[in-house]
């Protein structure tokens, strides 16, 4: 069956440290992968995307890697801040480009 799994437990880190979130998938062939941020009671907000033929993408303090052999993406937030506290979702986009399948999300808390 198809699965998208993210860190199973909430992640608590100290301010200033790097947060690393994982996204593992099975039985999908994504054209690309996206990461979103979701705050309580609100819709997800797009952060970054990475194509299947890219190894790494960066945007300010964010970095995403994508390993199609391992079927895994890692999402890093460097120099984390309390304002980064939220749930982070990965989404796989399949070949049609119009269907998005989300992971369960990882709740991140950055402790001052």
């Amino acid at each position, binding site marked *: 069956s198809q699965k*998208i799994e993210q860190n199973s437990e909430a992640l608590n880190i100290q301010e200033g440290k790097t947060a690393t979130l994982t996204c593992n998938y099975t039985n999908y062939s994504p054209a690309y992968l996206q990461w979103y941020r979701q705050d309580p009671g609100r819709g997800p907000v797009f952060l970054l995307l990475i194509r299947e033929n890219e190894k790494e993408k960066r945007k300010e303090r964010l970095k995403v890697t994508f390993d199609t052999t391992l079927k895994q993406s890692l999402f890093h937030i460097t120099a984390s801040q309390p304002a980064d506290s939220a749930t982070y979702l990965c989404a796989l986009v399949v070949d049609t480009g119009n269907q998005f*399948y989300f*992971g369960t999300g990882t709740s991140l808390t950055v402790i001052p």
Partner: protein
Amino acid sequence: DAMVIQNPRYQVTQFGKPVTLSCSQTLNHNVMYWYQQKSSQAPKLLFHYYDKDFNNEADTPDNFQSRRPNTSFCFLDIRSPGLGDAAMYLCATSRGSGRALNEQFFGPGTRLTVL
């Protein structure tokens, strides 16, 4: 500002009483989506429209229907809500495949309570 708007933000309905949730967008995007998200779970894709072309997910219950009368509006109809349908319903849009790499723009969601 261009955006995705969902009304109402909170909806209470009774078991078995039909309910309609609405979504509008000012982004002029080709694709509109409906997701169901239960507490601490992933958003689950119910269906999407590419322009007027309706695409249903295989595991979306028949109880859920959708209409897209024009580019700007999309509706989610729940014909006979059950207690298990209580959730946050998220509407999203995207430009559509073939138009660079898509990102989705989400509305704030409608939280549905079934009594």
